[in-house]
């Protein structure tokens, strides 16, 4: 990796965006890289917008980056992914779960965003891989492991880190009773990612 890779993670509090960013950071360090993540904790369990930054490279100092600097956008929810889209650079890749959580502010105005228009926005100017992450996670036996599916797809597409390190990282961040199904969700995501890697 000759330069710093910037990854933005967009989610709704409670979906496991922080676990995803932590898994990436642990795996990156295991692979010998320098890493910084930028996140704000403390309100993250509470159904609000959560945005994490992960930066991986030979020598990293800053925990955050600016608009147009993300190489990857990992999204666990469509509205939050569109909100974070300005971070993605031209030619960057978005890996986004097809989950929609309609915010209260939209319901109160009867202005709920639609899945098709959110996906259109995500694919309009960037390469976006829309993943049925919840379904894959449910089929793997762990409905809460959509974050691990997205991690798998990301790795399948990018090959950024080693699978060995990612698996070790997952075993460090996921509690024992959920580990097997989380690992399965990651594996299924990995397969999905590899299968779409060559699609332009």
């Amino acid at each position, binding site marked *: 990796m000759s330069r710093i890779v910037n990854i933005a993670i967009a989610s*709704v*509090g*409670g979906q496991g965006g922080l676990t995803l960013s*932590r898994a990436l950071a642990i795996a*990156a*360090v295991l692979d010998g*890289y320098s*890493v*910084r*993540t*930028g*996140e*704000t*904790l*403390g*309100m993250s*369990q*509470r*159904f*609000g*917008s959560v945005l994490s930054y992960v930066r991986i490279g030979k020598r990293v*100092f*800053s*925990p*955050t*980056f*600016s608009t*147009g600097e993300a190489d990857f956008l990992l999204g666990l929810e469509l*509205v*939050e992914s*569109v*909100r974070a*889209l*300005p*971070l993605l*650079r*031209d030619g960057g890749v978005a890996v986004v779960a097809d989950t929609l*959580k*309609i*915010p*209260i*502010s*939209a*319901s*109160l*105005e*009867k*202005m*709920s*965003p639609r899945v098709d*228009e*959110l996906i259109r926005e995500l694919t*309009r*100017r960037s390469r976006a891989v829309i993943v049925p992450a919840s379904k894959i996670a449910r089929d793997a036996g762990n*409905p809460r492991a959509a974050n691990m599916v997205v991690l798998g797809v990301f790795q399948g597409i990018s090959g950024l880190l080693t699978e060995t390190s990612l698996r070790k990282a997952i*075993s*460090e*961040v*996921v*509690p024992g009773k959920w580990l097997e199904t989380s690992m399965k969700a990651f594996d299924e995501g990995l397969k999905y990612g590899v299968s779409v890697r060559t699609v332009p």
Partner: protein
Amino acid sequence: MFNPLKAPEGVRIALMGNEAIARGFLEAGASVITGYPGTPSSEVITSLHEYGVSSEIFVEWAINERVAFEIAYGAAICGARAAVTMKAPGASVALDPIVSSAYGGVEGGLVVLVADDPGPHTTQTEQDDRWLGFLAKLPVVTPSSPQEAKDLTVSAFDISEELKLPVILRTTTRVNHTVGEVLLGPVRPPKRTAGFVKDIPRFVRAGMSWNLERHRWLNKQLDIAEDVFDRISPVRNTVEGSGRFCVVTEGAAYNYVREVVDELGIEVRVVKLSLLFPPPRKFLTEALDGCSDILVVEELDPYLELVVKSLLKDRGSTARVYGKVSGSIPLEGELSRGLVRRAMTSLLPGTPSSAPQEVQPRQALKVPPRPPPMCPGCPHRSMYVAMLIGISRAGYKRGEVPVFGDIGCYALASQPPLEAIWTEHSMGASISMAMGAKVAGFRGPVIAVIGDSTFYHAGIQPLIEAVHKRVDMLVVIADNSVVAMTGHQSTPAWSTLESGRKARPVIVEDIVRAVGVDYLEVVDPYDIDKMINAFERLIKQPGVKVLVSKHPCALLEARSRSLRRYRVIDEKCTGCLACIKVTGCPALFYENGKVSISADDCVGCGLCARFCPYKAIEVAGNE
């Protein structure tokens, strides 16, 4: 799961800044560690609890920051190594004993973690606690990365013992909450008390001549602080690069400076401070020698800028200084690479004014905001809904009864649709500010809402004040039996603490009763009609009335009991939105003309069903 706090020396692992500080406490041999939860400082003690520490180490939350500091100070004057953690406003709560501690000093090392929050992300103000150095006359050190956070924590104990002064470890959110690679050092055995040596002039502040003498001693210690820091700390004040253009920086801001200088490929002198107080004048004099232009890059106040200007004035230097006072760096908010780049390029002619990554972002589809709401099933929501209905049943309009809020999850009720609280100020202020309104002549009823942990922390004295002065008010204590907002820490009502320690529960109602309020009632807010009725009655009643709204935090309850879930009967739902407008519950959403309930998020409180005029919400089944 992997236990980073027990990993061996020499291993390089990913740690969050706060975990690195926790590891630093163990590597330094701290034996008394306490504090009060507050973002972004909470994970230090939380991670020690999560991963477990030896029973030789006391790691417990205290009732507030002041008590926490005094516990740690008491341990340190008995020779133990002690640490205390708090967010910025907590340092203000503890300020009285912190300032006095500089006069008595310590025997065992004492490190005070104060976590500031440029942004702000989760704090009421952008308070700059570097000023604590000048105010309390205590050494202040600051790290820029998780690695430095750990290493500087260890050094801070050694410096503290050498100078016999508490040391303030001052951090910011982007260090506390950043995960980075950290090389671990050896863990030292905990240093407990070796006995308390009686020394009245040193530890009794009642003698004014003793105080004057201790002040002289303190100033002498500060005179040698820079030398002691240089000798002990592996995290140093540094100079990187060379040139007549110089950037002075510290902490998280250094990271942006370092990357921008590398990106621009320019030759500048980067001076980074790790010791912030006393200002390292010897180091700065040398580091700034020959500089013609100095840009100070720092977050929050122009602290270093004033330090540098004062030093240059004393040296008769004519170097130009840029920073927050000159407008090169904003006075508010947190810094970024972009802001630092702009400041540097505008001062350095010939550098590209914007790097390629600063291209205008694509115009994205506008999406609705998602501020943090109260969680589905939150008992606070039920309490507020009952309060708003109770106010109108008591014959008042919502806008006629001021609701003084306090600090905790229940302040999230300021968001639509509830918009229930009118103030959120500082810990415990709900009751005292409500009293202020009444003694100023406010004629109608007033309500104060305070959480259980905030009540223990700073609400008991205000309640005594209100009772003692016979001020009419309704005080709602929203008791969910936990410090919920900062990650579910223990309260004095717990019988077994996170550490496993057995404790004697101190119950909210017992305290309220002992204070002598005119009326006390405890209601489960899930019993919504009983709660509405209680509000209606108590708003009209004279005296100091306390209504304890008691129900466990829904997030915790959902983990421990089987859930009932609700669903919307499509044929009956008219899309009137009554459920959403009354509750604002994030498990409800409007789509295609109807309301639906997210089965993943509903915890079955039933509040929405109670307020559906068409009986269109029913129990979907138990899990």
